[in-house]
């Protein structure tokens, strides 16, 4: 019931704001959970949404933080800081995210104050905020947190250091890379991947490749890849048979960033590995490089027996602008696995051009994909409009209304013009399907076109449909 009412309020748009806010004030947690996503972006809503930050249901509190972020009022920042000690982690995450997206004049002061709190959770959240904004005044608290016995607090400080522009930040990271705690060394390796390339950083990361802890080796590998440190390629390849699975994968991931011939051939070898994760990482890496010689490997992997591998290969194939791409994606749209099928439609949906539009139209016959395909056709990409109009010329009674629905959902002037144009097209099925959509435009020009068609169209069904909508 609450959901149905919320749906109706949503249809009303801005007119419903007053009712929604009143319901937020008076409603229980369930109603608030349904209504918060419907709150419009108006400053007047902020006090009522802020009161939801105190709701007894954690998902409502998290949603309230999310809504405040969406409204965009910095006045909510102090209240959001209070939620950084919420007992529910989701609320803390949402509050941090909202504070980061809102920013404000008071954020720096509040964050620095929170970073000195005796409450470790609050300090950790505050460090993330300081890091996000890169407050230079935050360096001291980050350095202090790095000396804290709490490992997770040290982690938070380490992740923040690359975002502070101060040479002392890099010095501290290099020190952390030698810390006795494996977790701290791993965090330092990961953070070094976010810095600028420097000889002392590279040599620290190279040392990390030989660390006894697999996660330190994992992040060292990853960081060298991110820094595109091609000189480290041989040292990285040497870990290809590491005992730890995550390190073997990180090797492949790192090589994907390096565009040397040896890295590419190592990637091609990894694409045939018996380890599914190594194989998938290699396929992703080959996709990133978009080299023509990798495409046959990817197309072959798109026929793998393992659905997750097919999906990964397909996402790599989708990166290519090659003649083989669209047929491969279209073929995958008929895959037996619903994840692969759905991803294939998603990849075709984002491709511009008439051929991609035609490919989507050809999928309308699949009932399981129909709604997704119509949404994809409604994306206003280059080639959509001419593709849809051409398809409408030959569409049958089932397909034509779907194509018209896609045109109507575009909500663009050229799509509206195309709908009007459709009313005078050669296809009776297209004209019949266009009638309700043209009527929904609600313009004088649309009404005149419908009146004309109601008298002059050669198809009696079109004339009848026009008279019906005109009589309403």
């Amino acid at each position: 019931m609450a959901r149905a009412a919320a749906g109706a309020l949503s249809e009303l748009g801005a007119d419903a704001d007053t009712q929604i806010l009143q319901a937020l004030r008076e409603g229980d947690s369930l109603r608030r959970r349904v209504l918060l996503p419907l709150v419009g972006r108006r400053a007047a809503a902020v006090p009522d949404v802020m009161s939801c930050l105190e709701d007894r249901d954690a998902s409502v509190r998290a949603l309230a933080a999310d809504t405040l972020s969406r409204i965009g009022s910095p006045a909510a920042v102090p209240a959001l800081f209070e939620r950084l000690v919420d007992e529910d982690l989701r609320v803390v995450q949402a509050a941090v995210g909202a504070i980061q997206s809102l920013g404000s004049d008071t954020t720096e002061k509040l964050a620095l104050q929170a970073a000195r709190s005796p409450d470790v959770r609050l300090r950790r959240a505050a460090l993330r905020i300081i890091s996000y904004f890169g407050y230079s005044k935050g360096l001291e608290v980050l350095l202090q947190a790095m000396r804290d016995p709490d490992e997770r607090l040290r982690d938070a400080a380490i992740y923040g250091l690359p975002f502070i522009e101060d040479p002392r930040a890099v010095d501290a990271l290099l020190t952390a890379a030698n810390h006795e705690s494996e977790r701290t060394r791993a965090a330092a390796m990961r953070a070094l991947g976010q810095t600028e390339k420097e000889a002392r950083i590279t040599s620290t990361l190279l040392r990390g490749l030989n660390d006894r802890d697999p996660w330190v080796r994992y992040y060292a590998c990853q960081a060298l890849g991110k820094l595109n440190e091609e000189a480290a390629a041989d040292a990285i390849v040497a870990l290809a048979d590491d005992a730890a699975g995550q390190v073997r994968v990180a090797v492949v991931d790192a090589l994907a960033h390096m565009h040397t011939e040896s890295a590419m051939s190592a990637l091609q070898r990894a694409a045939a590995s018996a380890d599914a994760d190594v194989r998938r990482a290699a396929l992703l890496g080959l996709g990133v490089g978009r080299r023509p010689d990798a495409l046959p490997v990817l197309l072959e992997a798109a026929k793998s027996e393992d659905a997750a591998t097919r999906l990964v290969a397909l996402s790599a194939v989708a990166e290519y602008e090659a003649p083989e791409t669209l047929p491969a994606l279209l073929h995958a749209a008929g895959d037996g696995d619903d994840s692969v099928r759905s991803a294939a439609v998603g990849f075709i949906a984002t491709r511009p051009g008439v051929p991609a539009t035609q490919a989507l139209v050809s999928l309308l016959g699949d009932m399981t994909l129909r709604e997704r395909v119509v949404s994809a056709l409604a994306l206003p990409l280059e080639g959509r409009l001419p593709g849809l109009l051409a398809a409408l010329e030959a569409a049958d009674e089932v397909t034509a209304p779907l194509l018209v629905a896609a045109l109507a959902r575009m909500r663009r002037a050229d799509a509206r013009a195309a709908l009007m144009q459709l009313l005078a097209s050669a296809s009776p099925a297209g004209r019949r399907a266009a009638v309700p959509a043209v009527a929904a435009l609600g313009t004088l020009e649309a009404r005149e076109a419908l009146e004309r068609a109601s008298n002059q169209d050669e198809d009696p069904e079109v004339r009848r449909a026009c008279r019906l909508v005109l009589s309403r």
Partner: protein
Amino acid sequence: MFSLPMSPQVFAILAALIEQRSGVHYAPEDRELLADKVVPRALDAGFDSLLDYYYFLRYDPAGSEALDALVDSLLVHETYFFREALPLRVLAEDLLVPAVRAGRRPRVWSAACSTGEEPLTLAMILAELGVLDEVELLASDLSARALERARTGEHNLRSLRALPPGVEGRWLETREGRPRVRPELVGAVDWRRVNLVDASAVAQLGTFDAILCRNVLIYFQDDTARGVVSSLTRALAPEGRLLVGTSESLMRFGTALACEERRGAFFYTKAGP
């Protein structure tokens, strides 16, 4: 909301890992649902990438336990006493009591018992018929958390929503707002953690005169369900009965079991020797 992005690729490999471990299938439209469960765990474990977290679950020595905990949080534990009770009553009166009278000690397995309401309902029916001590009851679930609850005999008030008259006070009582089943009933059940997808674990349990596997197969893909039904069929003694939920059917799996109706209850029966 602040979150970690779950790409279709990461969703595919995570969902495959979860399905491999538990049999539970996630369709593409469940991506957000899965992300809601996984992201807080990944962040809590100190990962800021779900791919890194996946490698942790897959390769780290602590990953297996973390995967179990994740799967546990994904399982549906919704159940209640005397849910679809007719087949249990027919099983007890028409099959188990005659077996006991014939001098046998029948074995019954509740294969996905969650917090224990189903095997305890059967235990109550058997106790009422005076044969509880003569029937061996085994109850299992994949969720260690749910089993822990079951072993305590403590339940929530929602589990009483279909309770027939005469049960409360006799087989269970509510103290401080929490229903508690009598300890002798809880003690009559052998509680075990079993993964139904693991055929060798199922085989180790021996054979049963009846297996209850109700409202479980709906969470599996057909291939997984087919494999589970095969394992359960092997675990049935000749003329043993398999009970599935009223909304479930084994027809599409091409089972060798024969469908049989008794007083309005349906059983899948294994052929005799």
